[in-house]
């Protein structure tokens, strides 16, 4: 499918559409995790790649997460913050875990969490570290209604602070609450010349 999409810096776009239409493939291509058959993708004016500079600017959750052995939930969050030069005290790790309903699980190892909690942890870590573009694949999945509202508010704040957001979702209410402009895969392919 030919697709044309532009996400302005400091704005959010949410792609909707039925299963299998290519939302995740689009996100994977933008994240450089998959090569498109044809065409051009530019992220911040350059080709997306495997460089450390790219991954310091971009955070994605389109891949299944993996966890380090023998490292607790809180230590995973601290590790990522420290790798980006953040002070663990000022980064607000405890607040983030609290906000994502993981405050009581700081000492657990991530594989022992439920799938919803793992999803929350991935999002918590993704949003803790500094970034300029968030690429999220159905971030509302496996979250309960309260969790959805919380995450949507955080995403809206991220965009309001100047971050860019590209996500795929099946939940229009969630997408609107997160400050993203809704668009369908069909409309993206329709504008292709």
């Amino acid at each position, binding site marked *: 499918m030919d697709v044309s999409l532009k996400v302005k810096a400091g704005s959010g776009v949410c792609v909707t559409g039925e299963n299998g239409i290519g939302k995740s493939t689009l996100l994977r291509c933008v994240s450089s995790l998959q090569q498109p058959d044809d065409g051009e993708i530019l992220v911040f004016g350059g080709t997306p790649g495997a460089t*450390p500079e790219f991954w310091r600017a971009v955070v994605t959750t389109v891949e299944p997460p993996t966890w380090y*052995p*023998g490292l607790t939930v809180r230590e995973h969050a601290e590790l990522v913050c420290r790798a*980006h030069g953040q002070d663990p005290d000022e980064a607000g790790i405890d607040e983030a875990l609290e906000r994502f309903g993981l405050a009581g699980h700081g000492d657990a190892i991530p*594989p*022992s969490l439920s799938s919803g909690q793992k999803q929350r942890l991935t999002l918590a870590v993704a949003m803790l570290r500094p970034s300029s573009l968030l690429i999220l694949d159905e971030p509302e999945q496996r979250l309960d209604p309260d969790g959805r509202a919380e995450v949507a508010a955080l995403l809206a704040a991220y965009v309001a602070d100047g971050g860019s957001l590209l996500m795929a979702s099946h939940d229009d209410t969630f997408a609107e609450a997160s400050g993203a402009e809704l668009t369908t895969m069909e409309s993206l392919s329709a504008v292709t010349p």
Partner: protein
Amino acid sequence: MTAVPLAPVRRWILRRQSAHRERGATAGNIYFTVLFIAIVGGMLHKQLAVVFWPTHPNASSLAAASLTPVLFGLLYLALRRFGPLALSRPAASWLLPAPVSRRRLLLPSLRLTAIVAAIIGALAGTAIVGHAAPRSLDGSAIALLASGAGLAGIALLLVALAAQAGGRWGDRLDAVVSLLLAAGLAGLVTDATTDHPVAAGGWPTAGTLVPLVGAVTLVVGLLFALAVRGLARTPNERILESAKTAGALFDSAFGMEPSFLTDMIERRYWAHRKLRSVRLPARLPILVGQDLLLVARRRRRLLWLALAAALPVLLEDAPHWLIAVAVLIGAMLAASTAGGNVKTDAGNPMLLRLLGLSSRDSVLQRMWVPGVLAAAWSALALGLLSALDELPPGPWWALGLALGPVGAVAAVRRARVGFVRNELLPLDTPMGTVSTGPLVNALIGPDALLLGLPALVNIVQNQELTWLSVLVQAAVGALGARAYLAGTTATDRVELHAQR
């Protein structure tokens, strides 16, 4: 609820399964196994004799007394690790929740494990007798001692079985057995470093052994019957856990993919640990701090490593190249204590992307802790060998320290290896077809130990060690580590493997 008879169900399953098999496949398998044992036994009969029945008894009473806890301790710990009671995965999913007699369902597994435990126990007993007993001991006494050892194997199985069903005392007993094993190894090392006379008399005659072995048979038989009666009380979750182990074992064997088993053991280890979050050390590079935390959480393994540094002493009578190889492999194993993090990154670079570090930075940081572990271990091992005068004079501990980078490169290379490549061409040999994938996979990592060649040459030469030799090894190790970093990582790439 009435229990459904199990035998017809099993017969039906067997019939269905055999319908998918070629005719005569089972007979062919048995034929092949017997032939294999006969050929390998024929080829290795001299080596087997050295292990089980040397021409003259050559062990002191200390060595014999130390071998006993080592061999039987290993048997017990292996039984505990694998169950001992396990079901195949299909049986665990379909028959365990079915209304069939639990005892009958588990009995075949118990029977098979008992036979294996008895055979291993008897072999261990024969080996100990063969090394320590005078050749004047008559055949019936030897047979009785071997049967007693076989019974001891079954008794250990029964204890392991009770521990599988029971509570926390099982873990404590494991710790005690580990201690006995360590004490046995310490005894062997002590024996190797001092001159003890070969054990002579004091062996019981057949006359005294008959009532003793008879009584043990009676007791073990009685306990076995009790265990069979109590079989139904084994908790489901324990059987399911063992079924997973058995499944992973078969997957590893048939898929020739040892990582299935090692990964499962690793996952299970951490799942059973209770952790408390700590702050990562602020002064160290971030990944070094993380590796350090991982190692600090494996204190028991560190203790075993420290004890294992004495094991090369056991090779005092072996050719020196074997001691050198043992030290190099030990350095790699010590370094790989911290290998779990690199392995995670090599399997899925998702966390590396989140961290935003270049592969050069991350692998460099990940080599520090393995390097220190390898250096400390080899310094301890070579220092001990030198202190016990097994090596000529010289700063051997320093040569050990110089092996740090070698162990680090080998361990990190091993951790990055990934799955076995089963698509590699098989080799046809006169002994049959050998698949090269697992062979190549097994060599990746240990091949980097070639960087320890200067140390190997020094140990083999058996001459006084000079500081120049230490310097040469240090330089080769450091250059090798640098070349490894330059060749397999990049500053403009996050993933450990270049994208294809």
